C-alpha cells in the first residue's frame, strides 16, 4: 500500500471539493472493497476521504412514493429496513444474498454500487488487464473465466459486475443521486455503469470527485411480490454464477408487467429489457419464460469456461418467474 493521507469528511460538499481538487484522492466508505484493493496494489491513492460518517445514513419515503436510500446506509440496515422488506423484498433478498453478515454491517449503498469486478486477473497486478492498466491486454481472454460475463462483453474485457444489490435496484428502475462540484444530478442506474467497449477502465459515468449521495427507487406496486435468486458455488458467502431479480404482475394467466434483471452474467448489472418485452402481454407459462430468457441470451458471447451460464440463466429465470407466477395466482 502506498502511503496516503486520511481525512474524515464532515460534509458532502467539502468531501466533493477535496477529491475534485486532488487527482490522487479517492473516497472511502465501508472500505470493504477499497482496502482490499489497496492491499492488492490495484489502486494507489495518496489521499483518502472517508465519507462513511456523513449524515447520509437514512432511508426515507419519498413524496409521492418510493424510497430514498442514503449513500452510507449499511447494506445490513437497508436489508432489514421495514419499508424495504415490505415494498421491495427483492432488494432485501439481494442484499442478504451478498457477502456475509460482518461485511453487510459495514458495506454501504454507494460503495456497493461502485465495487469493482472480482475478475481474478484484474485482482492480480502481475496479469495484463485493460481495466486496471488500459492497453495492457486482457489475461482473462486466455485464462479462467468461470465467473466472467457473457453479456455486454467486448474483445477488451469480460469482467462481470459482482454486485447483488445493484441487480435488484436496476430491476426497480433506481436512480443514482450524484453530487458534483457544480451541484446534484441524477442518473438512471441502468445507465450508471458503462459497458466495457474499448475503455474497460471507465466503469461508470461518474466524474472524478463526484459523490453518490443517495439512490432513489420509484414506487412499484408489483414489487411487493418480487424475488431474488442467486446460484453460486457455495450455499452462502460466494459471488453469483447467475442471479435473477424479478417482479411480476400476472392477471388471468397473462403477464401484465414485469421487471427482470440478471447478475453474474453481465459486465454491468443487467436489466433484461429484451426478455421483459418478450414477456409483456404473453402467457405466464414456463415455456414463455424460457423463451424470453432465450431471447435475452441471444446476444450472449460465452467462453468455454462459462458457456454453462446460458442454460443456468435460462433455468434460473424460469424458476424465479414461475415462482412469482405461482404466488400470483394463489
Amino acid at each position, binding site marked *: 500500500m502506498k502511503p496516503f493521507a486520511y481525512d474524515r469528511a464532515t460534509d458532502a460538499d467539502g468531501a466533493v471539493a477535496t477529491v475534485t481538487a486532488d487527482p490522487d484522492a479517492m473516497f472511502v466508505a465501508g472500505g*470493504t472493497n477499497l*482496502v482490499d484493493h489497496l*492491499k492488492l496494489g490495484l489502486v494507489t491513492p495518496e489521499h483518502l476521504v472517508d465519507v462513511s460518517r456523513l449524515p447520509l445514513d437514512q432511508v426515507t419515503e419519498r413524496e409521492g412514493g418510493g424510497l430514498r436510500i442514503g449513500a452510507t446506509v449499511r447494506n445490513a440496515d437497508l436489508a432489514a429496513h421495514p419499508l424495504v422488506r415490505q415494498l421491495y423484498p427483492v432488494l432485501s433478498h439481494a442484499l442478504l444474498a451478498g*457477502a456475509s453478515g460482518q461485511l453487510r454491517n459495514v458495506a454501504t449503498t454507494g460503495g456497493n454500487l461502485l465495487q469493482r469486478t472480482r475478475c481474478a486477473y484484474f485482482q492480480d497486478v502481475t496479469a495484463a488487464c485493460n481495466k486496471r492498466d488500459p492497453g495492457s491486454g486482457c489475461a482473462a481472454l486466455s485464462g479462467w473465466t468461470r465467473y466472467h460475463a457473457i453479456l455486454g462483453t467486448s474483445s477488451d474485457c469480460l469482467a462481470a459486475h459482482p454486485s447483488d444489490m445493484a441487480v435488484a435496484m436496476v430491476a426497480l428502475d433506481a436512480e443514482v443521486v450524484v453530487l458534483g462540484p457544480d451541484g446534484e444530478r441524477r442518473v438512471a442506474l441502468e445507465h450508471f455503469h458503462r459497458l466495457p467497449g474499448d475503455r474497460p477502465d471507465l466503469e461508470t459515468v461518474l466524474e472524478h470527485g463526484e459523490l453518490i449521495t443517495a439512490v432513489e427507487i420509484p414506487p412499484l406496486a408489483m414489487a411487493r411480490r418480487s424475488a431474488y435468486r442467486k446460484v453460486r458455488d457455495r450455499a452462502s458467502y460466494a459471488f453469483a454464477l447467475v442471479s435473477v431479480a424479478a417482479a411480476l404482475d400476472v392477471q388471468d394467466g397473462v403477464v401484465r408487467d414485469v421487471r427482470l434483471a440478471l447478475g453474474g452474467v453481465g459486465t454491468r448489472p443487467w436489466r433484461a429489457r429484451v426478455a421483459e418485452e418478450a414477456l409483456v402481454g404473453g402467457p405466464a407459462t414456463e415455456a414463455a419464460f424460457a423463451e424470453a430468457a432465450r431471447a435475452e441470451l441471444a446476444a450472449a458471447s460465452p467462453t468455454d469456461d462459462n458457456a454453462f451460464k446460458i442454460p443456468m440463466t435460462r433455468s434460473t429465470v424460469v424458476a424465479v418467474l414461475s415462482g412469482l407466477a405461482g404466488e400470483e395466482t394463489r
Partner: protein
Amino acid sequence: MEADLTWRVDGVEHTLAVDTRTTVLDALRDRLGNTSPKKGCDHGQCGACTVLVDGRRQLSCLGLAVAHDGSEITTAAGLVDGDELHPVQQAFVDHDGLQCGYCTPGQVCSAVGMLDEVKAGHPSAVSDDLEADVELDEDEIRERMSGNLCRCGAYSNIVAAIEEAARA
C-alpha cells in the same frame, strides 16, 4: 503517514499514533498485542478477524484503524467477564465447537453479534417471509454464520453451541 487514534479496546482506552495504512486487525495484533482477532486471509474472505465494533460484528482486516477513531472494539478476549466466559464462549467449550482454535475467536464474536441482529429482527437469506419474526433454527444459524469459515470443520458443534447460547 501517521495519524492519532483513540479507541477503547476490550474496555480499555488506548491512544496511539498509527500509520494510516494500518488496519484495525494489524493495529490490534501488532501494536496492542491483542491477538484474539486472527488473520486468516486479510481480505474479508474468512471471518477469523471478526470483532465487535460499537456492538456490531465486523471484519477488522478491511477496516482502517484511523477510520475507527472513537470506536469501541470488543474482541473475544474482551467478552470474558472476570473469570466467567461469555455464554457463547462457554457453549463453544461445552460442545467442542473448536479444533485448532484459529477461527474460534472470530466465530465467537460473530455469534455474539449475530444473536443481537436476530434480537433486532434482522432477516437473513433463508428467511422466507421477510416480515415474520425470525425463528432461529439450524438453517438460520448456518446462513448467518457463513461468513466464518472453519477449515477444521467444527461447524456442527458450533451450530449446536450457538443454539444452546441462543436458548439461554
